[in-house]
């Protein structure tokens, strides 16, 4: 389902959210639900708001900013043609002078299957405090140490020890899987499911696959 009222595009400088025509309340509700559907992928990103010639007051911009904060992103700039909007934006300290290179992000999850998603290979060990954030599949050749995090729209495959936090199918895809040579994450999420594996005194001896089955995350040995 594609709705022209709100578009979200990825650029090299963060997200650009364009609000189309129509009553503001409805458009903002659409924006909220679009942000929520990809919540953990967007976390921490910054947003430039594009509103064409819609006039927005300081209060309205503040309300929009607050809704974005709730979704985990931060409003930093406004692109618009209406003078009132620009004045309000500047009053709130937002940037109004923009030239953004556009790198469109792929279509919404419901339009891209797990097989169509792009994948990326990383060859490094993720240390505490480091994270990988990718909209497709992630293959990591190395370890994910405790305190590190991998968030992927697709599958997560760790050719090493997985001991940090992992979120596969982060844009809502519950068919995604998490695989590791030694699967021992501190927290595992697939789609909207979350599980905290039991304390393991030793790392597992053989590769395992985690997937959602019958409403829960299940870990199985990989028998090939």
């Amino acid at each position, binding site marked *: 389902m594609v709705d022209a009222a709100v578009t979200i595009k990825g650029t090299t400088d963060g997200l650009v959210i364009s609000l189309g025509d129509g009553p503001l309340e409805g458009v903002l509700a659409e924006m909220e639900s679009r942000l929520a559907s990809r919540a953990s992928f967007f976390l921490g990103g910054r947003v430039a708001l594009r509103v064409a010639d819609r006039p927005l007051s300081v209060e309205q911009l503040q309300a929009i900013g607050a809704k974005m904060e709730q979704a985990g992103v931060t409003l930093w700039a406004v692109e618009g043609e209406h003078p009132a909007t620009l004045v309000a934006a500047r009053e709130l300290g937002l940037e109004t002078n923009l030239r953004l290179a556009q790198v469109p992000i792929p279509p919404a999850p419901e339009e891209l299957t797990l097989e169509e998603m792009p994948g990326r290979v990383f060859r490094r060990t993720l*240390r505490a405090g480091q994270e990988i954030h990718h909209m497709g599949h992630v293959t990591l050749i190395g370890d994910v140490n405790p305190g590190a995090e991998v968030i992927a729209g697709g599958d997560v495959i760790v050719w090493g020890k997985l001991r940090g936090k992992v979120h596969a199918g982060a844009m809502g895809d519950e068919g995604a899987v998490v695989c590791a040579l030694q699967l021992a994450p501190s927290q595992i999420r697939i789609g909207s499911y979350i599980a905290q594996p039991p304390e393991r005194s030793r790392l597992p001896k053989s590769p395992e696959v985690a997937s959602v089955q019958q409403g829960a995350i299940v870990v199985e040995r990989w028998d090939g």
Partner: protein
Amino acid sequence: MSATAITITSGKGGVGKTTTTANLGVALAVLGKRVVTIDADIGLRNLDMVMGLENRIVYDLVDVVEGRCRLRQALIRDKRLTELHLLPAAQTRDKTAVSPEQMVEVCNQLRPAFDFILIDSPAGIEQGFKNAIAPADQVIIVTTPEVSAVRDADRIVGLIEAGEKGTPRLILNRLNPDMVRRGQMLSQMDVLEILAIDLLGIIPEDRQVVISTNQGLPLALDGKSPAGQAFRNIAGRLMGQAIPIMALEPEGMLTRLARAIWK
């Protein structure tokens, strides 16, 4: 010959950076090297006390950086080991009083006159840490065998590798072999499995350490202390000597039984 600048850091507080800096300084000086230790923990300085030099501080690092004294005037020479000097931190300021560039400049001025510059980093990953790391040719990370210290150390390793300061080396401090054997403490292997960096040395848990730091008499001077010996070994390794890591395994029951039977 220009000095090698080594920063001793950890992430976690209280794991033994200052004790390590003081003892390595002493051990290297005993081996005849010209050493200056720098306390980069501005505001919460401790290196002077652990080295037993706190009563002799007139000027400090911040005085040098702000031009109130010459660098030579701020250096305190140890009376027992005349090749060992200390550049103390300021007690009344904080980490923002010095910038990484200023730290590099101070170290560059010290390089011609010394063989080793040891920089005692504060805990954390903020300004103080950045100041301490800036002039480093090598980095040593100190950790204790407990999960929170290792987690913080891992973070630091990531930051150092990303900051193009090479790969740091590890000192594992306060290892208690009996507790490891009882499964109450992480083992050397547990720690290295996560950190995966070269082990420079292991300092065994030693109750003498607290006494020595309170008295300002570094253990590296004490011939009988196992921790002191460990520091001396590390100093040797820093000078390129191939000294094997002390085996710290406790005697198991069978070993003790065997010794009793075969005496």
